[in-house]
């Protein structure tokens, strides 16, 4: 935690959930839980986001939207599946229209359990995502440096 240097921004999208988790995601940003003290900020623009909070079991119509949002985010990026629907499909797993989990469409790094996920659990997910983001950023920076050196030698 102490050596986290970056302040990642959060993108939140409702991929076919009952919106219980979505209002908990928003609630974890508001004064009582205040996830923004960790240096994260909720943004509406995928091109400026680093952490993707996805809720819900993903249906066929929303799947391309989720895919597009994920592709629009700059690298490095971290995906957090919030709530049991985003993890496995949850109570809607048997429904004809649900694919069953966010990882059927995009790669997911962190799974947050709960129906609806509690703000404490969501904040825990954000903290883990932030650490993972820090690690990936460092790897990304090292890779970029390596490429630069190669280019200079060539």
């Amino acid at each position, binding site marked *: 935690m102490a050596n986290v240097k970056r302040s990642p921004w959060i993108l939140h999208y409702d991929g076919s959930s009952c919106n219980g988790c979505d209002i908990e995601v928003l*609630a974890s940003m*508001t004064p*009582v839980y205040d996830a923004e003290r960790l240096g994260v900020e909720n943004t509406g623009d995928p091109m400026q986001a680093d952490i993707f909070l996805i809720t819900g079991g993903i249906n066929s119509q*929303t799947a391309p939207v989720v895919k597009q949002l994920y592709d629009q985010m700059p690298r490095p990026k971290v995906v957090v599946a919030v709530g049991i629907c985003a993890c496995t499909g949850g109570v809607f797993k048997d429904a004809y*229209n649900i694919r069953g989990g966010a990882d059927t469409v995009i790669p997911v790094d962190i799974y947050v359990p709960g129906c609806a996920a509690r703000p404490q659990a969501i904040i825990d997910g954000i903290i883990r995502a932030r650490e993972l983001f820090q690690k990936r950023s460092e790897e990304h920076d090292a890779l970029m440096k390596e490429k630069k050196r190669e280019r200079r030698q060539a």
Partner: protein
Amino acid sequence: MGIQSVIPFGPQHPVLPEPIHLDLVVEDEVVKEAIPNIGFIHRGLEGLAEKRDFNEMVYVAERTCGICSFGHGMGYCEAVEKVMNVEVPERAKYLRTIWMEFSRVHSHLLWLGLTADAFGFESLFYECWRIREHVLDVMEATTGGRIIFSVNQIGGVHRDLNEDQIRFLKGELDQIEKDLKNCEKTLFGDMTVQKRTRGIGVLTKEEVHDLGAAGPFARASGLKYDMRMTGYEAYGKLDFEPIISEEGDCYARILVRTKEIFQSIQLIRQALDQLPAGDLNVPVKGMPKGEALVRIEQPRGEAIYYVNAENSRFLNRFRIRTPTFANLPGLCKMLQGANYADVGILVVSIDPCISCTER
């Protein structure tokens, strides 16, 4: 005539917590037509009724929506109870009413916050959501869940309120009322709020009636129409009048919903004073057979629950008509001729609950 162009609004948009897509046909800055496209959160919940036992289905029905979840569970239970001719104990009726009104307070506070956010008043957004946490504390202490409560069952409820909880609940009610009174000055008197909401998205009483709008959205235009007046559960024994406003603009919608929070607080106090002693639920025997239609007042308006069963564990058909679906034609009418900059606040002003709409 200027050049017309189409601007997509959503599905992912900063003012929307949930995805809905609108194609806005604009001419310069003025919206000429709005074409909604829904289905991003369709889960096929009604289809699950054929796969789940009718007792288990309560939990699925509650997950129609995270904001009005208590109402959906209650509506489903009422419909099945009507089919099976079950008479719910008095105490259960009062408890359902109390929890229902608490979810109305929670829903309206959530909406006030989102509206403030839609016109960029972020501190008001945070303040409303801070007050809302009191309601969630009450819900957690009495039902065990913050968002999804799961206290309804066919034949009653399965949790009780004891003396300590009632005392805590009354204290929190006073706190919510006090905090909201402080907020009220800003909500009704502030220049920023007035500039962004007065005279925006005006609908007349006739238009609202013809477009079939429901709930606070219709009441803000002067249509005195509240399902609670039919007296289901304990509402028949409580004293209240639907709150209406004549203006029909966004400001009137804020006014009506804020007053409804105070009204709900009064209703909870009345119900707590009258709370009768007795059983929480009655045992239910046999399988449902027949069909029933139940109408209840959700925070967003009138919701209709239809159940059809043929003497088996699984229902033949379960159908919900949700208030936001009824309000979408009103939204499209409002958007015609609106400024593009007002689209965000207009969409939020109907209190859209897309998860309910698409189920």
